[in-house]
């Protein structure tokens, strides 16, 4: 291969290999710094990814919105407008296939099923990666706290900007889940 083509090809390849993760970072950072923060009530469970490590899947309470559009099918992309409820948690107001011009923040979701002016949906930011030894305790501790009714709230802190949303952290009783798990593991070992 001609040397000049080789150099150009190599530079393009290296640039692409930088561009893809770099663009991922820039997009996420812009949402985190410029976006609006919402609290999404949730419950974590613990699966694993062979390449990206252990994570908890978040089962959000907010999974239904009002819509008059009965043509929405399973798997369609939807825009769901957000508001905060009286307790300060995110609440879905209205869902639509097109962006609505109502100055509300919105998230992009995937439609499940339509029934009587209500559409159920799946939110995309349901994966929170954790240090490998903490993912499973996170699930069990939250379940235990729920059962003992000592858990006031468990929520995902999500930054929203345009149709992009970034899950920044998961908090239990306003404490980051990492610290919550660490504290409980420490307490259990000291007992």
């Amino acid at each position, binding site marked *: 291969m001609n040397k000049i083509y080789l150099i150009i090809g190599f530079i393009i390849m290296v640039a692409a290999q930088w561009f*893809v993760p770099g663009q991922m*970072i820039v997009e*996420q950072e812009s949402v985190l710094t410029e976006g609006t923060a919402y609290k999404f009530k949730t419950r974590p469970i613990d699966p694993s990814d062979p*390449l*990206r*490590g252990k994570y908890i899947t978040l089962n959000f309470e907010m999974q239904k919105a009002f819509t008059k559009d009965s043509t929405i099918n399973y798997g369609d992309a939807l825009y769901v407008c957000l508001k905060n409820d009286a307790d300060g948690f995110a609440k879905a107001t209205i869902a639509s296939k097109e962006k609505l011009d109502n100055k509300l923040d919105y998230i992009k979701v995937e439609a499940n099923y339509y029934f009587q002016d209500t559409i159920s949906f799946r939110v995309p930011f349901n994966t929170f*990666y954790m*240090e*490998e030894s903490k993912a499973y305790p996170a699930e069990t501790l939250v379940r235990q706290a729920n059962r003992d009714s000592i858990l006031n709230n468990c929520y995902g802190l999500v930054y929203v900007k345009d149709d992009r949303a970034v899950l920044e952290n998961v908090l239990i009783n306003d404490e980051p889940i990492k610290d919550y798990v660490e504290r409980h593991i420490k307490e259990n070992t000291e007992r």
Partner: protein
Amino acid sequence: MNSKIEKELDKLLEAKVISRSVQEDIKAYYAKDTVEKPNKLFAIFGVLGSLLTGLGIILILAHNWDDFSRATKTFWAFVPLVVGQLFAAYTLFKKRSSAWKETAAVFLFFAIGASMALVSQIYNIPGEMSSFLLTWIVLAAPLVYLLKSHAVALLHLLFATIYACNVGCFNDTTPYLYLLLLGWLLPYYWMQLKSKPSSNITGIFNWFLPLSLLITLGAFVQWDDSFVFLTYIFLFGLFYNLGKLPFFEHQKMRANGYLLLGSLGTVFTLFITSFSFVWDEFINDFLSINDTAVTIVIGLVTLAVIAFMYSKKRLRPFNLFQYVFVLFFGICLFKEGGSFVPTILVNILILALGVFAVEMGARKNLFSVLNYGLLIITGLITCRFFDTDISFVLRGLLFVAIGAGFFGANYFMYKKQQKQQKLTINE
């Protein structure tokens, strides 16, 4: 130089078959050859080392070091990538040996995956495994040509296969992008076939490419309510006919994955369809629209390969294995009338293939082909034991007969070979 050759040379010198000067010449030839030959062992261990290091880095990063800040973790996400790119640039522009290039390319391949995985982890970016794999494969794809890396070409094929299965198996999506990923590799494979048709790596590709196609066909067809056996027979027909192309026909049998996979796959699928219940199951269904399209495309490509061989006058002597897919299609047309006729016809076809292989083995003096034919016949009889009411005595007699056939045919071949050897010596 190989010590075995050295010992043989000493023996030949002692027996006065060769002179000392000839012995020296041969030694000098091998010594020169060894110097010129790239160090294959270094390449293999280099690739293995990179493979393990790369996978190790991915696992270490997957631990999720949550005591580090986001900025620190982001910095570490790029470290393996930069190391891999610098290593690749060094081997490429300093024109290091292929062993160095292979090592650098494999390391960079895994560094790309590690970097993307860590960024996804830091920002909790959700997403399917398939889209993650696709981005990874595309970003690493230029390495195949820039560093001329066989190992990355194989990894590309392996990851493309995993991607296709991830997208298409157990759901309704068809992984069309797999075909593009495969297409990216074809010029590289073509260059290998042209420049090094008998090398080990070309032999490995001759196995991996059809294997990848065989595995991913499952992602292109719908298994529910579809008579996919026809599609598979067509694919095996394509493999067998590809294996008969001039490129592959003169190679060692073990390096011709197309021929072996095509032949074994055809026979195996025929064995399955030789049971009447298989036809009963699908009595009212044929192929879905999607599967019909896939089968037609494979069939047309196979016919094109046969037409090419016809134009090159390479279809003589007649070989029944090359046309099984057409005959099986003909058998499928009788399906509407019930399972009886197609079942009988498939059994006759298997028997014909067995007899044909025995005849071909005897004609070409090939023990392997002869015994393969006998095995096909044995397999057919064994299969019929499960769904027929033949008496035990008759079954026993059939087995004795086929056993005697094995002995007889091999003995006949052995005698024939001995006779030919004697004739050659006398001449």
